[in-house]
């Protein structure tokens, strides 16, 4: 009975995923350009949140360095955009973020809990302030121009990055590395004792998750066309994925996707409807989610399904 349920479940999810991807792929053919731009933003948040969850979900290390990885991608795009073709720029953006993350990951081996959180936040703020100082003192201008790319191309690139991030997350999750990462989250010392190379695994996963953030930043820069350190390294890019992932539920891979998609849409509606109260409402939602939805939407769905099946 249970086995049948599991199988139908898997077919249902795969079918749903297929339909969603088909919809995403054909979207530019029949909707207005505005919706494409909106969808690009939403998928950008989904990419950042899913990549954040690849590392922070199983290990329970809350990283606030997403803005650093995203911003590095944005700056790579600004500096190389004119010289190199788009796919190369995006790949380089992702790789530079990956190297930065590997470096941070190897530096922070000893830091746990609160120390890790504030360290990652400190690193991303340090980069922002350093860049701001560097640009004003040596380059002479604070902002930079990025070569613009057609909206539809930006959209398709973002969808491809999303699919790659999702596939990577899925493959890691069902491999032995996913299990190892989860055991680090449960009890790191025990994980180390049963022979998991905790340090390398954490640093590698952190780096892989940063790759997609950097790639998303590189393509997003071409849509913004003008960037400066405060736009590229906006601390909100560090907080949003945490909030969106918790809102969706961290346990399953579809939780962060759901959370990011709903939240990004909500953000767009709030900004247009209540431009002055948007951040206030955002704060209230954040507190309410933490108080009343500690396991996120996924937790709510699971509870409802369990309740529905039993009762």
């Amino acid at each position, binding site marked *: 009975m249970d086995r049948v349920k599991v199988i139908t479940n898997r077919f249902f999810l795969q079918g749903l995923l297929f339909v969603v991807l088909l919809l995403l792929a054909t979207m530019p053919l029949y909707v207005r350009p505005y919706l494409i731009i909106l969808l690009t933003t939403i998928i950008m948040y989904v990419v950042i949140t899913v990549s954040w969850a690849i590392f922070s979900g199983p290990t329970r290390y809350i990283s606030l360095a997403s803005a650093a990885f995203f911003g590095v991608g944005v700056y790579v795009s600004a500096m190389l955009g004119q010289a190199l073709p788009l796919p190369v720029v995006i790949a380089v953006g992702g790789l530079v973020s990956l190297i930065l993350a590997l470096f941070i990951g190897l530096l922070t081996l000893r*830091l746990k809990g609160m120390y890790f*959180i504030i360290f990652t936040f400190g690193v991303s703020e340090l980069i922002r302030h350093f860049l701001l100082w560097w640009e004003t003192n040596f380059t002479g201008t604070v902002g930079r121009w990025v070569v613009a790319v057609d909206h539809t191309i930006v959209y398709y690139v973002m969808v491809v990055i999303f699919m790659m991030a999702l596939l990577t997350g899925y493959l890691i999750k069902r491999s032995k590395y996913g299990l190892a990462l989860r055991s680090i989250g449960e009890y790191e010392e025990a994980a180390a004792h049963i022979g998991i190379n905790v340090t390398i695994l954490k640093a590698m996963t952190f780096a892989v998750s940063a790759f997609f953030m950097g790639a998303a930043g590189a393509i997003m820069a071409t849509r913004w066309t003008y960037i400066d350190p405060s736009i590229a390294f906006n601390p909100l890019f560090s907080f949003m994925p945490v909030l969106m992932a918790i809102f969706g539920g961290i346990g399953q891979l579809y939780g962060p996707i759901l959370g990011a998609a709903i939240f990004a849409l909500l953000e767009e509606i709030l900004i247009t409807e209540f431009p002055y109260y948007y951040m*206030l409402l955002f704060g209230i939602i*954040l*507190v309410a989610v933490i108080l009343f939805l500690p396991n996120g939407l996924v937790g709510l769905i699971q509870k409802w399904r369990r309740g529905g099946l039993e009762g």
Partner: protein
Amino acid sequence: MFEIILDVVIGGLLMGGIYALIAVGLSLQYGVGRVLNVSHGEFIMLGAFATFSLYTVFGISPLVSLAICGPILFIIGFLIHRTLFQYLRGTSESIGAFADSSLLASFGLLFIIQNVALIVWKADIRGYSYLDSSVSIFGALFSANRLVALLFAVVISLGFYSFLTRTRLGKAIRAAAEDPETAQVMGVNIHRVLAICFGLGALMAGFAGVLISMMYEMQPTMGLEYTIIAIIVVVLGGLGSITGSLIGGFILGLIGSIVTYFDAGLSLIAYYVIFILLLLVKPTGIFGR
């Protein structure tokens, strides 16, 4: 040369006094209550803006505002802990999980307080002049308000330190910081003590805000920078150590003053570099256990 050194040192002490005050509040909230309150700076901002309004609208002296803003912010902080954080503490699986969720909740508080302030006071940069005549100390010039602020920062810090070491409530707070469960067994009303700690943190932030408003311009988004400085000082002094926070504040103030002398744009960068190096080399801080 002597004047430059004096200028840098006294300037550093002036800044350090404020940093110490801010950090002590945060240290109390995190060291005892395990709430890394990132909205700490917003309470500083509230104190500063309340003082600004009281001074420009009603003509109330900022030094009188200390006695008004402090208690009001204490009550706000107390109530926030009694409702929000007490509930979170009750529903969290472990103290580590509580530390994470309370950090995120305080981000929510940050956005709420900051945006209420933006609606009330608008996004403009504000300031007022109070005691801005200059005083000469061995040839180095300082405005009177900065010296008054330093004096009050030192008096408040010392007063607070003796409150912690000499009174019954102070003893209960220190006991709760050591081991909340055992303190509870010994008859400490833990929820009340934790709420009082959070309130006292807000009170210290409010005091700091009043003093900051006498010296610097302010805007509703100023909070986060002070929060970050407070976190750096708290880590520098050792998480949970009140004495460490007091001394750490003065050390960071001096470093900031020296760096500012060479390039003002580098001071925040220097703070971050110190912070990151410290976390890598000795995360428990200079006075940590």
